[in-house]
């Protein structure tokens, strides 16, 4: 069968918007302010920017370059690209994580994304504001998730309906392809997201002190809570790890999605400037917009002692419990709550389509199947895989998937791709590959950083996390007895899924080998 012609991006701005869309997600607006607050405020930005330069930007260039290199040979995912970097039968199996990881994240991310759509809807209808304090807002969330039946929800129906709508939106966008689906979405969604973000940010920054009894509870002091530096924390290795982790998650590096997106470039397309622009857009959304909304406004309404509890409650509570309560108290609060959840939803959907694309590209490229058919196959399988996350949410399935797919796989995959690119393919070839068609030159120091510093940094993160946090997680320390069967079941399912992806990779090469003969 003749090899199918692969799509390409319509414009340079299109792929930049798509990669930025993939990177800008919920973490920019919720995870970053909480991490900064918990890790030294302004002082957190020192390890944050160091990690950006030593880890984030180099990995961004590495993934763009690997992706474009693989795409030239008709491969849109890591197995094919790695196989071209390293002429070994084993190479393609190292790329399995680049399909498995994003698929696992997609399975739970789409469900969380659907909650945001639901909350945007309930903000407009005013239903969200039936909950008036922290406990009732928590109960609203738990009722919506189907964990309990209460005065707000009698079952999981509303949540499931929004999930189906969100899921179908994702599939519809993927069905229309790279140029007609993803690029079109990101070209509209990203500017809209920034406009919504700036509107909410301006509203927050002009709030002053909303409670006249507490003039010190104001937005400026809220910004101070996030930005006043505490240099003492820099002696703590955990803060440096938290900063590196945040850079990792925020830029969507180590997942495999950038490799897939860049595979739709042509050989002469620039990757250096495009990659850096996507980083810049992501950082703008995270540090400037994300850092100026949630924590400052929560401080203005909850004060210095209340905000400590809010920050301790984590990113999730900040988004789904604290923020709706805060918006309730604003004039036109429903509208601002809608804008907040709408921007989170746009951030979510531009990320979720990117998480789905590696699996779609793999089926389409390596089995020579029409991309539309590949989307339908992906849709059916992933819809089934989403069900345990929805129905066993209270049993820790989502957290388990997040650990293996959204944390462990990321660091491991980043380490593998950096070693393959800088050491096996060779740093001189890698340097040349990065600069093909480049609009700007990368400073020479990055040759050293990519070869030595980035892999060493990744090894350090992997080792330290394993020692400090992962061993208790792997051993299920603190997991309630009733949840253990679900966690073990999820782990078995993940092993099976990884084995199936590895089998399909092997099968694809076997079939291609036969065809070549």
């Amino acid at each position, binding site marked *: 069968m003749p090899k199918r012609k692969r799509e390409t991006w319509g*414009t*340079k*701005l299109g792929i*930049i918007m798509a990669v930025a869309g993939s990177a800008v997600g919920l973490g920019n607006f919720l995870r970053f302010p909480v991490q900064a607050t918990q890790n030294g*405020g*302004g*002082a957190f*930005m020192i390890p944050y*920017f160091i990690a950006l330069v030593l880890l984030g930007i180099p990995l961004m260039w590495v993934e763009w370059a690997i992706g474009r290199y693989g795409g030239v040979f008709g491969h849109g995912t890591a197995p094919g690209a790695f196989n071209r970097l390293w002429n070994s039968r084993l190479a393609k199996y190292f790329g399995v994580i680049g399909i498995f990881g994003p698929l696992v994240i997609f399975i739970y991310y789409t469900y969380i994304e659907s909650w945001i759509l639901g909350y945007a809807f309930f903000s407009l209808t005013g239903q969200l504001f039936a909950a008036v304090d922290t406990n009732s807002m928590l109960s609203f969330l738990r009722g919506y998730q189907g964990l309990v039946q209460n005065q707000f929800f009698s079952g999981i129906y509303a949540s499931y309906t929004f999930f189906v709508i969100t899921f179908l939106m994702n599939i519809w966008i993927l069905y229309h392809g790279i140029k007609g689906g993803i690029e079109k979405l990101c070209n509209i969604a990203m500017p809209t997201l920034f406009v919504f973000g700036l509107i909410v940010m301006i509203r927050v920054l002009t709030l002053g002190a909303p409670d006249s009894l507490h003039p010190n509870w104001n937005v*400026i*002091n809220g*910004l*101070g809570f996030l*930005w*006043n*530096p505490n240099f003492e924390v820099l002696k703590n290795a955990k803060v440096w790890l938290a900063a590196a982790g945040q850079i990792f998650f925020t830029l969507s590096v180590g997942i495999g999605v950038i490799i897939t997106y860049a595979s739709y470039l042509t050989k002469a397309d*620039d990757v250096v*400037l*495009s990659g*850096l*622009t996507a*980083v*810049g*857009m992501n*950082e*703008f959304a995270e*540090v*400037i917009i994300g*850092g100026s909304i949630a924590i400052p406004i929560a401080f203005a309404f909850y004060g210095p002692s209340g905000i400590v509890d809010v920050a301790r409650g984590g990113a999730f509570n900040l988004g789904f419990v604290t923020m709706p309560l805060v918006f309730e108290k604003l004039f036109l609060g429903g509208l601002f709550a809608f804008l907040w959840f709408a921007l989170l939803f746009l951030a979510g959907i531009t990320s979720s389509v990117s998480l789905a694309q590696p699996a779609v590209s793999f089926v389409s490229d390596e089995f020579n199947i029409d991309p539309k058919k590949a989307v339908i196959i992906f849709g059916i399988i992933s819809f089934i895989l989403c069900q345990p996350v929805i129905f066993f949410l209270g049993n820790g399935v989502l957290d388990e998937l997040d650990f293996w797919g959204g944390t462990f796989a990321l660091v491991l995959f980043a380490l593998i791709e950096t070693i393959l690119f800088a050491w096996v393919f060779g740093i001189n070839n890698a340097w040349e590959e990065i600069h093909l068609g480049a*609009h*700007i030159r990368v400073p020479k120091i990055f040759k050293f950083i990519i070869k030595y510093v980035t892999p060493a940094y990744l090894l350090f993160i992997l080792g330290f996390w394993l020692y400090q946090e992962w061993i208790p997680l792997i051993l299920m320390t603190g997991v309630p007895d009733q949840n253990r069967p679900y966690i073990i079941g999820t782990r078995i399912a993940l092993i099976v899924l990884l084995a199936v992806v590895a089998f399909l990779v092997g099968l694809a090469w076997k079939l291609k080998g036969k065809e070549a003969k």
Partner: protein
Amino acid sequence: MNIRGLVFLLVSWAIIIGITAYCFWQIFRAKKV
């Protein structure tokens, strides 16, 4: 917000706005949008 907090905020914002603006300027200058 103390003065050091303000400095950290302004420097961080300046770095990010600077990088982003430089990138877009280069892209539009190359007229390869």
